[in-house]
């Protein structure tokens, strides 16, 4: 069963749930004597490349992006970005105000919400992360 797709459709975002659960699956104490549940079929370890990859596609994309850039205007951000950042910070802050790790559960439920939101690209402004663009081009 596929648990957490690392990428959701064509939304250009990634699942926040995945970003936390990779720790649950990849970090944490292991006792050698115990059997570990098989992770076969789980796609959570899928490589999701966000860093710049040296390729002709990337070169052309950058050249065209530069052509469109308005250097006088200064760096602009997509309108969706501050909201996204705000949500995540807020969930961290809520956790803290409870003074305990119970905030982590909140983070996870926010992550679910985020994953759901991102599954509906029409309702969410695009962020302009490197990978977001990259995925667009691939589609």
């Amino acid at each position, binding site marked *: 069963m596929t648990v957490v797709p690392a990428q959701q459709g064509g939304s250009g975002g990634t699942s*926040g*749930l995945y*970003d*936390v*659960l990779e*720790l*649950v*699956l*990849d970090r*944490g*104490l*292991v*006792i050698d*004597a*115990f*059997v*570990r*549940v*098989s992770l076969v079929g*789980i796609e*959570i370890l899928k*490589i*999701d490349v*966000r*860093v*710049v990859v040296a390729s*002709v596609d990337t*070169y*052309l*994309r*950058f*050249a065209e*992006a*530069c*052509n469109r850039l308005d*250097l006088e205007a*200064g*760096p602009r*951000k997509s309108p969706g970005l501050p909201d996204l*950042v705000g949500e*995540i*910070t807020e969930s*961290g*802050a809520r956790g*803290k105000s*409870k*003074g*305990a*790790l*119970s905030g*982590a*559960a909140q*983070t*996870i439920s926010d*992550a679910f919400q985020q994953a759901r939101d991102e599954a509906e690209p029409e309702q969410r402004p695009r962020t*302009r*992360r*490197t*990978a*977001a663009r990259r995925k667009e081009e691939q589609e």
Partner: protein
Amino acid sequence: MTTYIYGIAHRTHAHLPEEMGGVGDPPRPVRTVVQGELVALVSDAPEDLRPKRRDLLAHQSVLAEAGAGGAVLPMRFGGVSPDDDAVKAALAEHGERYLERLEALEGKVEYNIKAAHDEEAVLHQVLAESPELRALSEANRQAGGGTYEQKLRLGERIAVAVQQREARDAVLIQRALERAAEEERPGPQSTGWLANLSFLVARERADEFVASVETLRKEAPHLVVQVHGPLPPYSFTD
């Protein structure tokens, strides 16, 4: 009946979430196995345990609850012991090391930080820093975007500059955040962010840590920085 193990705490831990629903459907109730100074947080393991979303979340939730009441060494998801006695044997065998880690993690939580570039902003920076790249870009623009070769030549140079920034920014992020943290570890490798770092943060300094992330965001607006936490200290168990 096999035993599923969530985490390990000191015997004096006051608020272990016994009876809370754990892994499985229906959720198996959480209970404890005591051995010497240590207590393991366990439940029966469902026969067909698989890494399903609800089970991953159950594992995480049990640890989050337990961590709220004191230090807990979180297990990686999916550790199954043949029975409770084998859990006791493991606690007895490695007890000293677990106690040492519990002491080190007392009052501390993990924050995981992931960062990527905002593409438009980073391209702006790269062009702003290099008169040469600006000139190349301007020449292409005036030629209606440039030929395929011109675009490739510009794009390749830009990509190199962006990659250099990725490396620089990874260091910048680490330096900006490490001051408010006790320890740091690299996050899982496969995900390809320009930075994926976990920080161990003392609870009383969590505000300071989150504030340092905010400062970083303001000072480096070309970075998209995600904060996940507070979390059980998964990355600091050894």
